[in-house]
């Protein structure tokens, strides 16, 4: 049986850049902040087999129940529209990226009943 390759932070950065380019978003310009999240995404991929949101508790490998919070989560577009950033602060609008404000925690949009 073929063993899944371990994802590194570098792999996660490539994924993050591809997502940002696809959606026309920006990656948080705070490199240290983005690095924590890239490492978190890689860790989650290696634990669960998918890039689960690094800022939310998960169903620990139940891909169907975690489907809405696989990065980019289904809430990210609405969060970028309303707050200029996704829940994690990984993806941001051009305006926020250029403002120098930095990301901050925002309200959770995911319905409570979807959490473990």
């Amino acid at each position, binding site marked *: 049986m073929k063993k899944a390759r371990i994802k590194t932070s570098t792999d996660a950065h490539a994924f993050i850049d591809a997502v940002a380019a696809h959606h026309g978003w920006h990656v948080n310009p705070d490199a240290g*902040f983005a690095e924590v*999240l890239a490492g*978190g995404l890689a860790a989650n991929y290696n634990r669960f087999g998918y890039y689960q949101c690094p*800022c*939310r*508790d998960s169903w620990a490998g139940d891909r169907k129940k975690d489907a809405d919070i696989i990065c980019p989560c289904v809430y990210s577009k609405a969060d970028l529209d309303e707050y200029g950033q996704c829940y*994690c602060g990984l993806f941001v609008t051009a305006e926020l990226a250029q403002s120098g404000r930095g990301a*901050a925690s925002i309200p*959770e949009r995911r319905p*409570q009943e979807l959490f473990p």
Partner: protein
Amino acid sequence: MFDYIAFERIAGASTSAELKLFVLSTCAFCEQAKAFLGEHGLAYSMSVVDLLPNEEKRRVRNEFVRELRTHLRFPTLVVDDSRTLVGFDRSAWTDALLRRS
């Protein structure tokens, strides 16, 4: 509260409030929260929730709802087993922790 958890104790010069920090090992706002507490010399206890056994995680989530009337989000700081700061907001944490009367 949460006495079944083996918290990591982080030393600090200030122990005026009992602080319990709940984080994920993967979250950047959690790192900012830890840095904030460290910068201000606040002693706290920390639990890395994604690394807990599932049964303990369940107990923690339930205790948040039952005792603190809030859902567990990351990071969350529990102050004196009664108040919660949910999510990291530097301004709100400064007001709540450093400007206490």
